[in-house]
């Protein structure tokens, strides 16, 4: 049993690391500090490494793992419901991996398997390595989905092939005669090192992808600003023309007034006012917000829709340009996509400040055939998610301010309420 114990203790760190990765996948906020989190995983590692010398009854091991999983969930901020569901899910993931590996392993016909003492040592190495790979892949897939990163599927395939391939090579290498426990463990160690190195490389690639998508975002932002500068330049020119024309306008008005035709003068006044307002939608004076709204609404210039804009905001806000662009940009993108598809076209945007909070209220029409069965909405949740392209980006930016977004929808109107506290 010594072989098993050595392999077990040596692979414990990667097993604990796999559990850690799974928790980080499903929970995003720590309840205490990173130090407490680290300490609890370390304690668990020590505990399972020591307990092996006391008992090896599988059911007790299972209970210990289950207990740890449930207690560990209190390291993270979430509802009680999630604190019960997630550990159960993780426990079943671990259990299923162990079952599958054992079953497959049982079918492989290699000489070493017949020696029961080697058998269990190799088995535990395989189970742990597969657990690590699976946990890591789940983590990456969820993270990429949350951050809206477009990582090609071939990338995941290559990653899996390399990881599984090395596993296969490890099993095949056990075919040779006169294997000692040292060589099994040595090969196992190499296998683990290869896997960990792959994970490290992958992390680096992942972060470079994140940086790239941020760069892309900034590039788009620059285009938006350029357009706004052009718009402002246009309106300055229009103002100059208007000033020049003012004398003519006044002469006409004088004429109309002397005839006391108020209806005609009303129309005339409105025309001059419209001319001063120019053709940009948003003139709140806040450069970032104006740029974003004018650029995005420009996409609807050819669409016949009802627009209501109400902006009461300071010229400068203590909200970072980047976050404001992400939040407003994604909100407007979603709304515009929905309006284009909708029969009734309506956009109602109101941004204001109150009690140190920037408040965005956005309402848009959408074609949402909500399925109704027995008087209940069936697919309301689905609609919510469909609307959520870029929603996670908005949420991420809002997190920096402890802000929040609330979504509501009726039969054909979708509304988003965003609160950003900007005073600390």
């Amino acid at each position, binding site marked *: 049993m010594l072989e098993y114990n050595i392999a077990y203790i040596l692979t414990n760190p990667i097993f604990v690391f796999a559990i850690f990765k799974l928790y980080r996948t499903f929970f995003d906020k720590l309840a205490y500090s990173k130090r407490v989190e680290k300490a609890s995983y370390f304690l668990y590692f020590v505990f399972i490494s020591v307990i092996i010398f006391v008992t090896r009854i599988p059911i007790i091991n299972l209970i210990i793992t289950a207990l740890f999983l449930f207690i560990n969930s209190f390291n993270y901020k979430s509802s009680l419901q999630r604190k019960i569901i997630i550990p159960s899910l993780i426990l079943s993931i671990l259990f299923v991996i162990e079952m599958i590996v054992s079953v497959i392993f049982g079918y492989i016909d290699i000489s070493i398997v017949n020696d029961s003492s080697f058998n269990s040592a190799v088995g535990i190495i395989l189970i742990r390595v597969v657990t690590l790979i699976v946990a890591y892949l789940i983590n990456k897939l969820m993270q990429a989905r949350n951050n809206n990163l477009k990582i090609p599927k071939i990338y995941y395939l290559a990653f899996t092939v390399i990881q599984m391939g090395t596993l296969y090579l490890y099993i095949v290498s056990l075919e040779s005669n006169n294997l000692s426990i040292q060589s099994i463990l040595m090969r196992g160690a190499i296998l683990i090192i290869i896997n960990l190195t792959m994970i490290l490389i992958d992390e680096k690639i992942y972060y470079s992808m994140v940086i790239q998508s941020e760069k892309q975002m900034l590039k788009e932002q620059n285009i938006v600003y350029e357009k706004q500068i052009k718009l402002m330049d246009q309106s300055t020119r229009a103002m100059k023309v208007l000033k020049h024309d003012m004398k003519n306008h006044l002469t006409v008005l004088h004429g109309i007034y002397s005839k006391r035709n108020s209806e005609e003068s009303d129309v005339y006044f409105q025309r001059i006012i419209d001319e001063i307002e120019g053709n940009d939608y948003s003139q709140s*004076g806040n450069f970032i917000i104006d740029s974003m709204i004018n650029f995005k609404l420009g996409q609807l210039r050819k669409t016949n829709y009802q627009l209501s804009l109400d902006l*009461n905001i*300071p010229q400068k806000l203590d909200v970072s340009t980047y976050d404001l662009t992400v939040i407003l940009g994604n909100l407007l993108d979603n709304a515009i996509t929905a309006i284009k598809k909708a029969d009734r076209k309506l956009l109602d945007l*109101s941004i204001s400040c109150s009690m140190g909070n920037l408040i965005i209220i956005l309402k848009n029409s959408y074609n949402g055939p909500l399925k109704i069965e027995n008087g209940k909405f069936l697919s309301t949740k689905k609609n919510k998610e469909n609307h959520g392209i870029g929603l996670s980006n908005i949420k991420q930016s809002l997190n920096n*301010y402890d802000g929040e977004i609330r979504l509501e929808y009726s039969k054909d109107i979708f509304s988003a309420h965003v*609160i950003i506290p900007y005073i600390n």
Partner: protein
Amino acid sequence: MLNIAICDDNEHICSIIEEIVIDYNKESDIEIKTEVFYSGEKLVEYLKIEDKFDLIFLDIELGNTTGIDVARHIRNEFNDHISKIVFITSKDGYEQELFEVQPLNFIKKPINNIKLKKCIQLAIKLLKIENKSFRYKKGHDIIRVAIKDILYFESKGKKIKIVTYNGSNYFYDSLKNIKEKLPKVFIKPHGSFLINFNKVKALKSKCALMENGIEIPISQRRLNNMRNMLIEFEQEKRDARI
């Protein structure tokens, strides 16, 4: 009785607003008195001697002193946090300071008849609530306090601490009991506090900064309710603008 001040350096704008107010007065059963000022200084001078106004229509781009200066003077020097201020503006873009004097609303030039009336209506609605009073028993005396003067209540054991602009006092009661007697602008940010939402200067995620500078903690659970009210109030103001 509603006291309205109109302050704009443009006489023409003043008379437009005044006409709309008079027009509103004819439609409603509330008695309205208006006072017109052509400069910020005159309004400040008037307020030094006379009573405060319920509602002030204040131009942002006044002559020498800006509307912000006047509003700040009213809030800080005269310590008047009750008068409702509606800013009148033709400018694109506001200063951030403008939002620190708790304006009731903004109206853009050219002045729209309906929007202005909606603003008066909103002010009346708020003032009606604020002019009510709250009564509590201390010993054998019954003490009355105007809702508009109350900042918050704090539960301290079996006693309740009431905090107003004029100081604080203690009496025996429970927050639950008090809440039932008060209008719904009184909200619990935390188990042992009941605050007047209209007196919040800054609503942060962890605490509410009150007008007297005291920070009241907000519990995670109740932040949602607080923000609901913030959005609800904002919608109401918005409805008066469009």
